[in-house]
């Protein structure tokens, strides 16, 4: 169980990035954090990973307070951040050096197989495409078998097709050990496709605006009515969080007389 308790963060320059954020994420649950820019999603993730310290409140995993990077918490960044001087296999094994070699190799091979990169182990990161590199980054975090995996807009730099396929890969990986997944995204479709819950955040200062359950069976049909409904609910909340509660797509039109 990942719990955030009255978490707040004020940066050295006085910017309040987060204010009194409280939430719990059940074991094995997938939660998407959605929100406009500057609403503290990334800050929240960095606090949860222990890479930054909170100004107030606390983060805990199964009662263990997270004040520094913790073995139970893995993180995937927006960019793959692979170490260019290590091969793909060595990159994946980076966080499990303490394990015996046989165990390490087995985990790496299994991970590569699972993300469709079998045989890529001896290659250099520079030989990978963006999508392949991000898959390697995800399994690098997962082979250490964290209880909680934090992901910071992991697919935002990829094209739509690659993104959809990576979301499927992610779900397949998640199935194996069912870690708790906290995923920051600005893509409403991604939230609807992956999450059990979408938590919409509000900017200035960053705080929770709305908690939207997405009760759809997996695998999800992206063309179904229910999927569209879930997306609509998240979008409506997102609009509300930015202070324009009644806006709808039809109202967005060029003002009369606009020269563009």
């Amino acid at each position, binding site marked *: 169980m990942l719990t955030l308790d009255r978490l707040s963060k004020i*940066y*050295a*320059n006085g*910017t309040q*990035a987060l204010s009194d954020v409280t939430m719990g994420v059940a074991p094995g649950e997938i939660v998407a954090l959605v929100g406009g*820019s*500057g*609403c*503290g*999603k*990334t*800050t929240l993730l*960095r606090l949860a*990973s222990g*890479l*930054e310290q909170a100004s107030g409140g606390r983060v805990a995993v199964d009662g263990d307070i997270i004040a*520094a*990077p*913790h*073995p139970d918490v*893995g*993180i995937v*960044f*927006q*960019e793959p*951040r692979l*170490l*260019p*001087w*290590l091969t793909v296999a060595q990159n994946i094994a*980076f*966080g499990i050096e303490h394990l015996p070699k046989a165990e390490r190799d087995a985990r790496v091979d299994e991970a590569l197989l699972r993300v469709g990169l079998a045989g890529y182990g001896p290659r*250099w*990161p*520079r030989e990978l495409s963006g999508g392949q590199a991000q898959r390697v980054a995800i399994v690098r975090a997962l082979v*250490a078998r964290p209880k909680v995996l934090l992901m*910071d807009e992991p697919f935002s730099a990829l094209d739509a097709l690659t993104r959809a396929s990576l979301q499927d890969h992610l779900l397949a990986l998640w199935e194996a050990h069912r870690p708790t997944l906290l995923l920051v995204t600005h893509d409403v479709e991604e939230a609807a496709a992956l999450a059990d819950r979408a938590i919409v955040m509000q900017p200035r200062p960053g705080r929770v605006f709305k908690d939207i359950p997405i009760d759809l069976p997996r695998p999800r049909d992206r063309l179904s009515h229910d999927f569209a409904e879930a997306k609509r609910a998240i979008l409506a909340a997102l609009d509300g969080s930015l202070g324009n509660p009644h806006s709808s797509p039809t109202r967005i039109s060029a003002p009369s007389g606009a020269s563009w």
Partner: protein
Amino acid sequence: MSEAGTLEKIAPADRQRAFVPSPRWLFGLVLPVGAAVLYEITARFGLFGARLLPPPSRVFAALWGLGGRGGLLTPVTPPLLRGPPALTRKVQIDPPRRREPRRGDLGPHRAPVLRREFLAIPSLAWVPLFILWLGIFESSKIALIALGVFFPVYLGVMGAIANVDRKIVEVGRAFRLSRWQLARRILLPAILPDYIVALRSGLGLGFMFVVAAEIMGASEGLGYLLVDGQQLGKPAQILAAILCFAVLGKVLDWLLVLGTKPLLTWQDSFARTV
């Protein structure tokens, strides 16, 4: 929103702070000043032979003496007029000092003032002292070459460490690497290409100091051939010596590149493709 954005927001405050002498800067003074005071005391009590390494008080007395006679102006002016090389040196040294430490940095802001002031001394200025201390034979020349080569390589390495991608360092932190592990598994491999470049330029510089040392007084060696050729009017001998330096330098540089090439196959850079 990206974390880069949040860092940009913090930056202005840090930048303002950079112009005020920080406690860290004062801390940097502790070592050199402390060493000077300690040496002054031990020299006063005659615990050290103060003849070859005079205590700070006598050094300042000498400086005062030069200034008092108006005599300091005479030796100081010509270097100032010939100064451009010294000035460019200063410019190279300044940026690391201005750079404010950020989270995840392990860099040169920790470097004590002492080392930077050493950097500002032209290496050849040590020659007379080395000759007094170590004699006119090999030891003083080796000391000169070592000192002359060390600091530029050191500066190159520190610059490389300062430029290691913060995001990569953060990966190390996320995997809970200790300081030592971070240095060994992230920083060292990350700076390796720059380190090799620094070593290559150090190698070139080394030959310059070999020539300088041998010109100043040697009875053998390539530098001696240069001086001998000049004094006896044998330009062919000078050119032959120069040719030897060129071949020697090229071969050693080539060996260095060849030996380190297997360590850099991972590189994804322009240099690898040409």
